[in-house]
């Protein structure tokens, strides 16, 4: 009898031990997150003031970077959102065939393609063949290559959640399928579409490598579609390689702005899809 009791106690101890270990894993994983947030705030917050946010880089500010990020997000969205959503509509509404499943697989593969590769491709395509110089257009194309698969997938997932009864009701009233899709189904999935798009934006807002090869970075504000442009992630990267303390501090300030933006988008997505069955993975 005592032998069994010992065995039980040991097993119970093991149970508690591993519970503790797993909990420790969670804590260990969260520590870097907290450290990053802490450091960015601690080192970047002191930089933030109106001058910093609005002057160009030579004057010690990151105005061009903020402007550039907004410009590139805008341009990318113009290309990426329509294509992504339409693509997602096809996959959801007409997608019961081999072509669609192949596209789905390719979309998934594309989301994992290293961002450097996307940068090289955009460089090779746009800069060599189209514009001849570094250009926000090339940057937008590069980022849209990354955005389209994400938006397509989230759109498809959102549309699939719309119950078939809605489609059938509309079709039964004699509405064409394309009209049904656009007016009825899309409207019903509106919030999912929006959150999916926001997710795509959040993802590309922080990308650096594709921009490195396409817009290069610039100390000055936007200079047209045939010139290099700055962006927050780029500015952080470029400044981090300089020895000057002011440049490095500016990098932290830019990091603070960038992380606030990205976190706001992510939390916005989370809040917006609360209470629904949507579970877009941030990864």
């Amino acid at each position, binding site marked *: 009898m005592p032998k*069994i009791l010992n*065995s*039980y106690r040991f*097993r*119970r101890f093991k149970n508690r031990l591993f519970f503790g270990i797993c909990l420790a894993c969670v804590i260990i994983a969260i520590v870097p997150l907290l450290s990053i947030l802490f450091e960015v705030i601690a080192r970047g917050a002191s930089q933030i003031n109106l001058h910093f946010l609005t002057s160009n880089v030579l004057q010690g500010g990151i105005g061009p970077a903020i402007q550039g990020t907004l410009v590139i997000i805008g341009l990318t969205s113009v290309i990426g959102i329509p294509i992504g959503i339409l693509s997602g509509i096809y996959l959801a509404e007409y997608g019961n065939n081999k072509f669609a499943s192949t596209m789905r697989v390719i979309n998934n593969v594309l989301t994992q393609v290293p961002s450097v590769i996307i940068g090289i491709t955009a460089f090779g395509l746009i800069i060599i063949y189209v514009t001849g110089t570094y250009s926000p257009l090339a940057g937008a194309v590069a980022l849209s290559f990354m955005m389209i698969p994400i938006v397509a997938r989230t759109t498809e997932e959102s549309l699939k959640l719309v119950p078939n009864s809605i489609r059938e009701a509309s079709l039964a009233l004699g509405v064409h399928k394309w009209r049904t899709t656009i007016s009825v189904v899309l409207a019903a999935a509106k919030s999912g579409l929006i959150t999916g798009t926001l997710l795509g934006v959040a993802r590309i807002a922080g990308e650096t490598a594709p921009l490195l090869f396409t817009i290069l970075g610039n100390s000055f504000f936007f200079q047209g579609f045939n010139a290099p442009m700055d962006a927050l992630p780029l500015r952080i990267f470029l400044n981090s390689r300089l020895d000057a303390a002011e440049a490095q501090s500016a990098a932290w300030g830019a990091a603070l702005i960038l992380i606030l933006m990205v976190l706001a988008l992510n939390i916005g997505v989370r809040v917006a899809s609360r209470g629904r069955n949507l579970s877009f993975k941030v990864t």
Partner: protein
Amino acid sequence: MQSINLNAWFGTKQALKDINLSIKPNAVTAIIGPSGCGKSTFIRVLNRMHELIPTAKLTGQVLLDGEDIYAKEVDPVMIRRRVGMVFQKPNPFPTMSIYDNVAAGLRLTGAKKGKNLDEVVRRSLEQATLWDEVKDDLRKPGTSISGGQQQRLCIARAIALQPEVILMDEPTSALDPIASAKIEKLVVELKRDYTVAIVTHNMQQASRVSDYTAFLYLGALIEYGSTREIFESPKNPLTEKYITGEFG
């Protein structure tokens, strides 16, 4: 085993009301009643599986050999070794061989491979009347045999631990009639060495295999007695209605 003033809840819904019921040793006790009457809940209370559900609550006592299994110092893990369970849908471990399935419980308490383990596995499979059918295929996955055989494997798995009580929650409802008949025969044999409690919605089965029967309705124990009494001369009109199939 014995339950005293047992009440159980799922969140705010009360599933069992004041159950006072004895499970006599070395006999088969059947628990019958219409769906939703709480018989599955009751049986899961007996081996402390009920508490695995997040919203479960319980008051009262359940005695095993006179000791309350819900006393503070008692570890559910220990209880579940002494009170085994067989489920409605056979659930042998798919990632393990037939041999390993039976040996699983023993390995958890440190039994090493060897003649001893082989002996126990063989004995359990024999008692579960499965040995002859699988003795050459012990390395095959536990799910590679038929449904009825899988259920007997689950019984063997439970028996391997030499429990004092074996609980069965509608063990044949997912099986075909031939397999069910085999299991019923097995249940009657098991009572020689074990105490058995079997939940069933099949009244004929209850009358065939059990010595005692308890009738539950809407969470309360309506009547309990020897199987012959319950089926031939039930005291409670509700029991009679159920037996004769007026509802259920």
